[in-house]
């Protein structure tokens, strides 16, 4: 049991470290804030311990942290087998001791962030880590530090020798993952993002998609013969709807044919109304706009 517990730590620690690198890279790619390293609040909220440094030093500190995590993550994987195993124990021991030291320093740094910048997140997993540092985050670093200590002196990793041993490994892994999830404020953020659907009022949909949807609609086919211009005379948006006005002529009267297109990517609702261009009298409403959410 104890051996199984020790053996699952290496892949777990490697995944945590490389995952943190990937999340930080993603954030750096998404916003130029990290690259600029100019100390914006948005950055400092998620850059965690690097926020303790002066503005000038934040970017180098962030780069050092990224490189350290990447090196340790790759090092843990590289030395997990026979290369760093029992025969030549030194590389594995150095990497694992380095990992333990890294998480020990993280415990101290996070505690400092909690005291000095209580509004800052830990930045461990990029923009997912905007929640202010709490005891849970510090405890997670402490747990990972203990995990790294437990791997020092471990022989090379091997496949489980029996189904019972594999089940034990999986059970230990599941328990530890659950414990880490409990200690991770990022989990709530991930769940929110997975279930998040942008409100239609905030949806950015290209105008070409709206016009394509309009031209494919039954309402367009119904009024197409009355439309007197190839392009709309006016186009505007109100929350979830985009409106297009075309000049037209109906039985000799100048009219405005107003189309309302709901802002969704597939099969949007399209409604139309015909309005006298001179008197603004509604001549032919088709459907109603009462249900329009604006």
């Amino acid at each position, binding site marked *: 049991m104890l051996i199984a517990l020790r053996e699952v730590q290496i892949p777990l620690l490697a995944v945590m470290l490389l995952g943190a690198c990937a999340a930080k890279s993603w954030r750096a790619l998404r916003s130029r804030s990290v690259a600029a390293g100019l100390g914006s*609040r948005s950055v400092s909220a998620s850059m965690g311990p690097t926020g303790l440094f002066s503005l000038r030093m934040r970017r180098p500190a962030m780069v050092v942290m990224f490189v350290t995590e990447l090196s340790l993550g790759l090092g843990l994987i590289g030395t997990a087998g026979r290369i760093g195993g029992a025969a030549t124990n030194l590389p594995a021991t150095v990497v694992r001791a380095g990992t333990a030291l890294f998480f020990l320093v993280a415990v101290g740094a996070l505690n400092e962030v909690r005291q000095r910048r209580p509004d800052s997140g830990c930045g461990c997993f990029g923009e997912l880590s905007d929640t202010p540092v709490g005891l849970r985050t510090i405890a997670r670093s402490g747990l990972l530090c203990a995990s790294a200590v437990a791997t020092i002196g471990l022989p090379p990793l091997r496949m489980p020798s029996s189904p019972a041993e594999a089940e034990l490994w999986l059970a230990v892994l599941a328990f530890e993952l659950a414990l880490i999830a409990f200690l991770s404020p990022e989990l709530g953020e991930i769940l*929110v993002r997975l279930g998040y659907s942008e409100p239609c009022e905030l949806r950015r949909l290209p105008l070409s998609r709206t016009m394509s949807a309009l031209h494919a609609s039954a309402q367009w086919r119904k009024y197409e013969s009355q439309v007197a211009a190839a392009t709309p005379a006016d*186009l505007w948006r109100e929350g979830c709807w985009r409106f297009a006005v075309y000049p037209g002529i109906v039985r000799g009267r100048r009219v405005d044919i107003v189309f309302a297109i709901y802002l969704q990517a597939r099969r949007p609702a399209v409604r139309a109304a015909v309005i006298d261009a001179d008197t603004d009298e509604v001549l032919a409403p088709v459907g109603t706009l009462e249900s329009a959410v604006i």
Partner: protein
Amino acid sequence: MLYTVTGRILDVSPHILVLHTDRGEQRFPLTAAAQAWRGGSISPAALRQGDHAVVRRKLPGGPVVDRIWAQVGRVTGTIIERAGPASLLVDEGPAKGRRIVMIGPEATGRIQVRFPRLAPGYLIDVIGLKHDGFLQALIPATSQPPYRAGHQPAPPMVSGHVPDPVNGTAVWHEPGEEPEDLLGLAYPALDPETSCERGAASAPAAGSGDQHAVDPHTTGPGCVRLPYLSVGSLLRLRNDCTERTRLLPVTSCGATARLFCDRCVTCGTSRKGRIADLTMAAFVELGGALEVGCFNATMTIGG
């Protein structure tokens, strides 16, 4: 307009103000308690002929005036150049261009308390006296955000629909190309496909200072989630401090307001973020004091 009159001062005495407005020459009796602002509180009689004035009536539609602001101006944007201790070049966004701000020694302390980083790349929002070609900054209109321009915090995610009404800060801007007596507002979230972002994207790049200039259309939605609207959309805006409400049209692009994640503390502390950038006439019409710079506001889409 019920409360507001704009025009050029033709003559002023302790009891009468004569303005040249778009209706021609108009005379307004002044109350004994009438206050005037021209770089600071002064007696109405101390106003100067030729000054541009925004005037607030005591009662809606009535002839009597109780507040006058003369030559008041405002610059809101990103500092892109600093020449010496007192001269700044400020980028107000693609729609408004660049302005020169001079900070006199009498105002330096007051402004630097609220704007400690008067350096390129940081935001500024100051109120002062308009002169030919520059603004003499006298009053900080807000506290400087702690981040550089364009690095404002992301807004919280919204599930379902965007809240309606929305609370936040309402500010004002100078007319620029708009008519001086226009009642309307610059809205921070115009539809990027049909409104100002479309024009901004195709605008040619400007010259010096560009490394610090920030196009607010490219920096995210700001710290308030507002539904996309278009020029001409109607909004019902309420001044929470005076409890005065008006139905106002969106008249221009207010993307620069997205850069500021600040709060207004005119009456209590508002929610973070600017929801409307009003014309001067609309700001005064809703009971705002131009030298204060903001009021706590509630906005309902569609009225």
